[in-house]
């Protein structure tokens, strides 16, 4: 019944959308004189569903959240990337966890790309040119992770004039400047800072602040050489008191990333070298009642990448090397003033690990219809006496059925030696990254996919089926009271397991002169198997949504006004539900059933946005953005429980279900001024 209802609603959404489409199309005909043949710019460009690029400039028409058009937020409207629950900013691609994607900014890894429970990523849209999402990476340059990469690029070329951008939103302000500093060089600088304590979470004592700074310098001494220097730093401070459980969190985390890229154009080839530093640190203080635990973690990477690409006629190949030195510092929780335990073992773990991968790719143009992209990445890894080296073969076969239709078959094998262990099921930075060793075996994955692509004038259809196998993935089972009261090491209770995920993705894009958007649908089935969890039986993966539908529309209402919406409808996430409720010590307590055996209610959300140009002159422009997140105020709970109340007057007990959702409708307004 529930599924039928959900399907009916999905059908209704789609019907609603397409029913309104012809009405808008009618308007298009009337305005055709004004917009002669000009198509709406695409937000998303794609080679296949394994390789999607989001253009920052075009994405500004989509509904923003709290005045920010976040690229990671937009990526979750695409097939294969699951919708998140409230408070969870994680990126879950084709059954993988957030840490299974390499989040890269100008070739340097960013370990924690989230602000405020994922409302924004650390990537300031004004400073990012595009992001390319790779789900089944054939290219050898994408490694060290089980799935693929979110590859963010800052501007890569010089600019002629100075350009300023100021944006004022409800909780943060942004400033961006770009301009030439010499004939050969340009500078890009962006700053973003929150200035008002967030008001939408109804919890007294809640405090949150973040800031971001980006600097990019592009230097082109001649037509064959280019240097790009990029620095990003960002920090967050969160105080989160949960009055219901008495749990107080104080979290501080920050990223510092810097990369220097040298691109040299040679005859029919390019050579690119990158030297980078990537640092991430989090400091946490967790307290509940009289117990207080402090945790600290840091990782510092120094890396060097070199890639040589040869392209001439039908001969394309690439070779490269990718070296990373990780230095991690993992502190066991320091128990402060807890009364049962005298002194916790406060020994810290220091790790120095090295990864070096050599790779090559060769594209075989068999004939006009058939192209084979083959690749091999070979990685060497060392941490102390623990050494590992593995080959990662990859192959992609592309067959053109006709000029507008093609089929892709892809397979890739990946190893991940540096892995994230998280203490929270949502993407709070209460986690640490550790290198592989005899206790933490390297994770590996096998990714298979078949893609079909068909293009028409105003539409294109992309369909993909995938089957992913993940081995040695990690799950930490630790409840917060243990952390606060037991003398345990942070590395205890980490289990090794396997995951299998298969599914089907569909992306249908439409682009009329005034109306554009897409419809994406994902069917996904993902199961985990851990020896120590659920008695060794397989169970649904925690972030798997069986059905995930997104409908996105952008409409140019007039020269000054754009409206857009995105509708999200997804199956609820799995959770472990109580099967029996009983009373003990004057409390309601549960007996839980099958691990992840139930599903939360269907996730539904409609976001709406209006962009209104206040002025558009030659040297300056300004516009106003009004966005409403979850316009229909739909309740999307992240936890379900029970409460009981005793009524003295009639000696009766009422038991009622409780739904925990921290926020619903969030309206926001922002003003942008460009000059």
């Amino acid at each position, binding site marked *: 019944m529930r599924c039928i209802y959900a399907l009916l609603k999905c059908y209704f959404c789609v019907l609603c959308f397409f029913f309104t489409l012809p009405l808008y199309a009618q308007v298009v005909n009337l305005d055709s004189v004004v917009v002669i043949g000009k198509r709406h710019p695409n937000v998303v460009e794609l080679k296949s569903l394994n390789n999607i690029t989001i253009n920052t400039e075009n994405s500004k028409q989509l509904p923003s959240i709290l005045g920010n058009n976040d690229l990671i937020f937009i990526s979750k409207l695409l097939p294969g990337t699951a919708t998140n629950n409230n408070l969870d900013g994680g990126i879950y691609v084709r059954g993988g966890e957030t840490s299974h994607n390499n989040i890269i900014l100008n070739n340097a890894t960013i370990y924690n790309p989230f602000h405020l429970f994922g409302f924004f990523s650390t990537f300031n849209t004004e400073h990012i040119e595009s992001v390319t999402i790779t789900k089944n990476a054939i290219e050898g340059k994408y490694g060290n992770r089980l799935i693929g990469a979110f590859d963010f690029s800052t501007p890569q070329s010089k600019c002629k004039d100075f350009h300023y951008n100021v944006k004022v939103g409800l909780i943060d302000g942004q400033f961006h400047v770009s301009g030439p500093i010499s004939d050969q060089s340009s500078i890009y600088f962006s700053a973003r800072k929150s200035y008002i304590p967030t008001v939408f979470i109804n919890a007294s004592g809640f405090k949150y602040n973040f800031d971001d700074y980006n600097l990019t310098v592009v230097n082109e001494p001649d037509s064959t050489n280019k240097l790009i220097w990029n620095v990003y730093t960002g920090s967050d401070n969160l105080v989160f008191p949960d009055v219901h459980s008495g749990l107080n969190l104080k979290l501080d985390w920050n990223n510092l990333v810097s990369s220097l890229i040298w691109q040299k154009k040679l005859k029919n080839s390019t050579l690119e070298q990158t030297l980078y530093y990537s640092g991430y640190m989090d400091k946490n203080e967790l307290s509940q009642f009289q117990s207080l635990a402090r945790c600290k973690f840091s990782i510092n990477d120094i890396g060097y990448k070199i890639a040589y690409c040869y392209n001439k006629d039908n001969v394309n190949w690439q070779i490269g090397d990718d070296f990373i030195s990780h230095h991690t510092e993992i502190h066991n929780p320091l128990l402060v003033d807890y009364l049962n335990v005298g002194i916790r073992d406060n020994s810290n773990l220091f790790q120095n690990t090295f990864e070096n991968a050599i790779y090559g790719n060769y594209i075989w143009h068999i004939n006009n219809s058939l192209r084979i992209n083959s690749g091999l990445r070979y990685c060497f890894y060392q941490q102390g006496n623990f050494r590992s080296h593995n080959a990662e073969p990859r192959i992609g076969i592309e067959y053109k059925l006709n000029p507008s239709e093609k089929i892709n078959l892809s397979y890739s094998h990946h190893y991940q030696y540096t892995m994230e262990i998280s203490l929270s099921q949502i993407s709070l930075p209460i986690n640490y990254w550790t290198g592989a060793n005899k206790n933490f075996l390297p994770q590996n994955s096998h990714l298979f996919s078949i893609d079909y692509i068909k293009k028409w004038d105003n539409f294109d259809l992309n369909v993909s089926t995938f089957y992913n196998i993940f081995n040695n993935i990690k799950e930490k089972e630790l409840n917060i009271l243990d952390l606060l009261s037991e003398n345990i090491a942070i590395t205890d209770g980490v289990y090794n397991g396997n995951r299998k995920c298969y599914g089907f993705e569909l992306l249908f894009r439409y682009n009329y002169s005034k109306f554009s958007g897409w419809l994406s649908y994902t069917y996904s089935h993902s199961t985990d198997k851990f020896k120590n969890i659920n008695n060794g039986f397989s169970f649904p993966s925690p972030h798997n949504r069986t059905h995930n539908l997104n409908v996105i529309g952008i409409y140019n209402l007039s020269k000054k006004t754009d409206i857009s919406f995105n509708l999200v409808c997804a199956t609820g996430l799995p959770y472990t539900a109580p099967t029996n409720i009983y*009373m003990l010590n004057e409390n309601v307590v549960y*007996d839980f059933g099958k691990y992840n055996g139930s599903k939360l209610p269907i996730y539904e959300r409609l976001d709406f946005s209006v962009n209104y140009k206040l002025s558009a002159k030659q040297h300056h422009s300004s516009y106003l953005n009004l966005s409403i997140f979850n316009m229909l105020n739909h309740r999307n709970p992240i936890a379900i429980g029970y409460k009981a109340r005793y009524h003295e007057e009639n000696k009766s*007990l009422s038991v009622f279900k409780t739904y925990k959702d921290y926020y619903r409708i969030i309206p926001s307004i922002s003003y942008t001024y460009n000059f």
Partner: protein
Amino acid sequence: MKNILFFILLLVLYSCSVPIDEIKVSNSDIVVEGWIDKDSVAEVIVSHSILGTERSESSIDSIIILDADVLLSDGTQSEKLTCTKSDIYPYLLYKGEKIKGMSGKTYSLSVSKNDIKASSNCYMYDDMLIDSVLCKNVGESNQSISVYFTDNNYANRYYLLLVKLIGSDYRFYPAIMGYVNGTQCISPIIRVGLLKSIRNVTNQNENFEFNEGDSLSIRLTEIDEKNYCFWKSFFTATINKSDPLFPTNINIESTMTGAMGVWSCYSGKEFNIKVKNGKTM
């Protein structure tokens, strides 16, 4: 404009939803909660589990099982406990008359109702003595209370701190995180934080610290490993059961065989204090 209105109308229609109940509750089970204090008779609450629906109202009489056979034995004598009215929630419990708690004895409880039989044993240890209690101001009137005791054989023992607010509580309740595993301690002088117990049905007060001026009676009792595991899992499950940041879905480790619940033997001498900032008693 008509198109936009039409679109909005469709959205309003879309926003209509039907309530969805996700939790399927299995058949009800017997739940036993019993204790025997030193020099007192045993008290046992026998109830059954409650159906989890959107909202349900039940009279207490319908939750408590009134016709169970509850038998208590101390190894030499046994008695059948009778269901009587009581001053403590849920106001109906099974009470003994002749067998009273004594140190060094094992008490066996068996409960039967139709085909269901449940049983458990507990051992009553010698009295543990509290050395001192220290109060410290942590809020406007909230007090952080530390209880000190000394035990040279702490390494293999488990302890539980019980507390009663004089004037309002009719019995002792286990304090939040008042369970101590001796293997975690590093010296014979042990300090335990004292908080109220969690009673979210009868006491809606979410402040778990005591206030200045509260009169308390505190007891420290040694318990067996089974009881320690029960109270540890009980507080873990109760405190963080709906916490979305660190969700807990562990099942409480019952000390009973054939039923959910706990059967406990509590010894320990009462230590009475009046909470006052900076005061050591």
